[in-house]
């Protein structure tokens, strides 16, 4: 079992090694919690802009796909309804039924 003191001592020593090797800049930035824009180089800015562009692109894609599927969905649904309607009207049973109804009507009229 390690003690708090042992852990902190080791932690500090490794931190020193990292600082000696030249990463104090990034550590300081993270500790400050606000890596200000002035510290950013051209490469950082390029990556940031790429992320923003990609975020916008995914959003546009999502909206476009959503619109596309909604439109297609409505179209397919309309076509299906129309096709069912046509099929029903065109079926021979329907014609027979109509004839029967017509006969019924004729009978009911008492003529």
């Amino acid at each position, binding site marked *: 079992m390690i003690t708090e003191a042992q852990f902190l001592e080791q932690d500090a020593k490794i931190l020193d090694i990292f600082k000696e090797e*030249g990463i104090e800049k990034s550590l300081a930035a993270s500790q400050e919690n606000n890596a200000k824009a002035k510290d950013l180089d051209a490469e950082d800015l390029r990556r940031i802009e790429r992320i923003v562009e990609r975020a916008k692109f995914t959003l546009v894609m999502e909206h476009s796909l959503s619109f596309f599927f909604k439109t297609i969905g409505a179209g397919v649904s309309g076509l299906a309804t129309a096709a069912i309607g046509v099929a029903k009207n065109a079926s021979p049973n329907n014609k027979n039924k109509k004839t029967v109804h017509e006969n019924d009507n004729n009978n009911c009229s008492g003529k």
Partner: protein
Amino acid sequence: MDALSDDDLVARCKTELPYNVTAYRELLRRHEPLVYRSCLKMLGSVQDAEEACQDAFLQVFHKIVEFEGRAAFKTWLYRIVYNRCLEARRKAARRNQYHSKMVEEAEHEELTKNKSSDDEITGKVHEVISRMSGEECRLVTLRYISGLSIQEIADVLDIGLSAAKMRLYRAQERFKEIYNDMDEGKEEFVK
């Protein structure tokens, strides 16, 4: 924008995204460079690091509305980053499993090239990190490159504080061991 805290920026993102990206861009400017460097150390490849970093920030873009603010934004962000890096590692492992030797050699060449081009961490520390196993490498990166506190690391890994300390201590031991092995001729930094 500089005067605003992360919490203020998150609040603005929640109301302004996706149509206005000003606050989001400021969050990126504050955190992206360090996140990218952390990904680079965890994954060892520029391409994988850029992809993981982009994916993490895209997830932030789409999910920031769901962020409840129970943890700090930084902790939430690094949890996403950590998971993305784990996923990228798994992908890379699968890729390596099936690729031919020539592809592996090409990747090794790329890695060597990246190492020499990376000016943030030079020399031995970089070499030590690249020799550490996945979990140890990620812990050391979160602590000494991302600059997270032990509590923040515990939150990112979703474990208790003492468990995080123990894992980090083991990673430190491993770091020390590799560092000393590489530096046998010089004075050891830790007895």
